[in-house]
């Protein structure tokens, strides 16, 4: 291994090690809760961006989260399945539904696809309210059990009775999600998505089955939303149709845009920063959307690439400034 690769490996390991030892030093449940919510939002925003890499905007993420949440809660409570079995099944359920719904609708392009995903969330919410026998209606499901304990004698003791254990689970979820999404995005499939985004007719003309790939991107993105929903329902131990509404889809969209859609790191940065906004403005909860709207408008008018494009923009401005100074100096 040469020096550069070693450095690169280190640059990934160090933050993860720091994140791993955080609960040893920070004991306040509130801080851990905020960190867990960051994790949940990172997964949502990154998977939404993944769908967007193929040129589609989904406002249906909240629906997918709720499918995951209900699937996992019901599998555990009705069929007595272990949480660890239910978690991937919840992801697969969201993926399957996204696949079935996505196939007929990929012929709708651009904004029309976005609107259909919006309907879809609404159908899921209404079904949750109506099908009382299964979902508990408007009240939802309460007392969802904690994930089953993982105990490896002398090494690991996760009983999921404390926030710290959930923190580790959330961290694992984030790392696994990001690694998988990154791997797919930099593979040949990811390149195909990008080509569809840039020009659908051109991709078609070189033999890409664009509708198949668009459904694939949508389904994979929804898989992670479903996983996230399962985690969320067991973490909060309750789920109701109203917990995942239109506003959640909008917020996830905002995380992605504010962070920056062009880069993989964008939604991560966006989710981290914007999860802090409601926590910092606790006193004025009802005005919180104002803050979000303000940030959104700043980004759309002045910083189209999102927060992650800021260093690049700044260095460009500085370079220009230096160049002008040099020029004027002679």
């Amino acid at each position, binding site marked *: 291994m040469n020096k550069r690769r070693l450095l690169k490996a280190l640059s990934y390991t160090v933050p993860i090690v720091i994140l791993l030892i955080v609960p040893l030093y920070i004991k306040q449940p509130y801080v851990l809760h905020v960190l867990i919510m960051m994790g949940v939002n990172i997964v949502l925003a990154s998977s939404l961006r993944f769908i967007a890499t193929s040129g589609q905007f989904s406002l249906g993420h909240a629906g997918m989260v709720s499918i995951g949440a209900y699937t996992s809660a019901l599998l555990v409570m009705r069929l007595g399945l272990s949480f660890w079995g239910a978690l991937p099944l919840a992801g697969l359920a969201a993926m399957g539904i996204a696949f079935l719904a996505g196939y007929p609708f990929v012929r709708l392009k651009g904004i029309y696809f976005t609107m259909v995903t919006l309907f879809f969330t609404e159908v899921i919410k209404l079904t949750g309210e*109506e099908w009382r026998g299964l979902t508990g209606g408007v009240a939802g499901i309460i007392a969802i059990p904690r994930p089953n304990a993982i105990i490896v004698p002398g090494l690991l003791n996760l009983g999921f009775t404390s926030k710290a254990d959930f923190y580790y689970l959330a961290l694992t979820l984030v790392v696994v999600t990001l690694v998988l999404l990154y791997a797919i995005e930099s593979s040949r499939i990811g390149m195909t998505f990008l080509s569809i985004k840039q020009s659908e007719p051109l991709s078609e003309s070189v033999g890409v089955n664009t509708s198949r790939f668009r459904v694939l991107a949508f389904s994979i993105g929804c898989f992670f939303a479903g996983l996230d929903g399962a985690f969320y329902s067991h973490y909060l131990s309750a789920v109701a149709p109203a917990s995942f509404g239109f506003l959640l889809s909008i917020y996830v969209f905002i995380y992605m845009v504010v962070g920056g859609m062009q880069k993989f790191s964008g939604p991560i940065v966006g989710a981290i920063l914007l999860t802090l906004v409601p926590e910092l403005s606790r006193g004025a909860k009802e005005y919180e959307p104002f803050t979000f709207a303000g940030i*959104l408008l700043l980004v759309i008018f002045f910083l189209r690439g999102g927060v992650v494009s800021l260093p690049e923009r700044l260095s460009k401005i500085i370079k220009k400034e230096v160049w002008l100074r040099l020029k004027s100096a002679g």
Partner: protein
Amino acid sequence: MLAQNLLNGLMAGWIYILVALGLTLVLSIVGIVQLAHGEIYMVGAYIVYYFCVSAGLNFFLSLLISILCVGFLGVILEKFFLRPFRDDVEGAIISTIALILILQTAIVAIAGVSYKDIPSPIQGVVKVFGAVLSWERLITILVSIVLVSALLIFITKTKIGQAMVAVSEDRVAAALQGINVNRVSSVAMFLGCALAAAAGGLTGAIFDVTPFIGGFALMKGIEVIILGGLGSIPGAIIGGLILGFIDGLVTPLLSVQLAGIIGLVVIILILLFRPQGLLGHE
């Protein structure tokens, strides 16, 4: 009972038509799906409430004031929030989402989240062949029909209306013929927002007004224009009536949720066989 349900369906249908026509005007002329259209509807209802209840004006006068105020609000919003993102789907989604948050929070800050009630303009019922029909619902239908007819006459008979048709067909060609596209966009947004305000005010006289009624109106509006065909005015009228009757007839028989599900499933099925909607064209 059936007659009353039919009347409720008809009323819901005409309200959906008012909302959907506004959306479709903005979509075909400005080229943007105005996601904050529901919030415009909500603001319209609140303005009627303030003029009607706080200032004590007549309901119809308040409705007229609201229509004009919201129309001009729309012109301002179009200039600053929609026009910069005309050919930019991503930017348009983001800026209209920001508008949703701003308008909703502003109304929460001004009026609070409690339910507001606009007194109905005319009390009482009328008996037709033994069926008991309430006047307020009949008036709502009547006013809606008058407004939609006025819009149709405006589009077909006036010069600016014809310019709107031209811009919706082909913006560049229209501009080359000397049509001021920006002015036409302002007019379209004025009309669209005015119709939404009318729908909001009329509904507000029958149901409660809260800052969160916009989401429902937007959903119904989008459903109607997708069902009827994007950019088609007759399509929006037919689509609105179909959805209105589904909501009016299914809700009392089964439940609100099932009415919503059935409406959406009908749209999804129609889209599968006719992606351009009932009366739309590619």
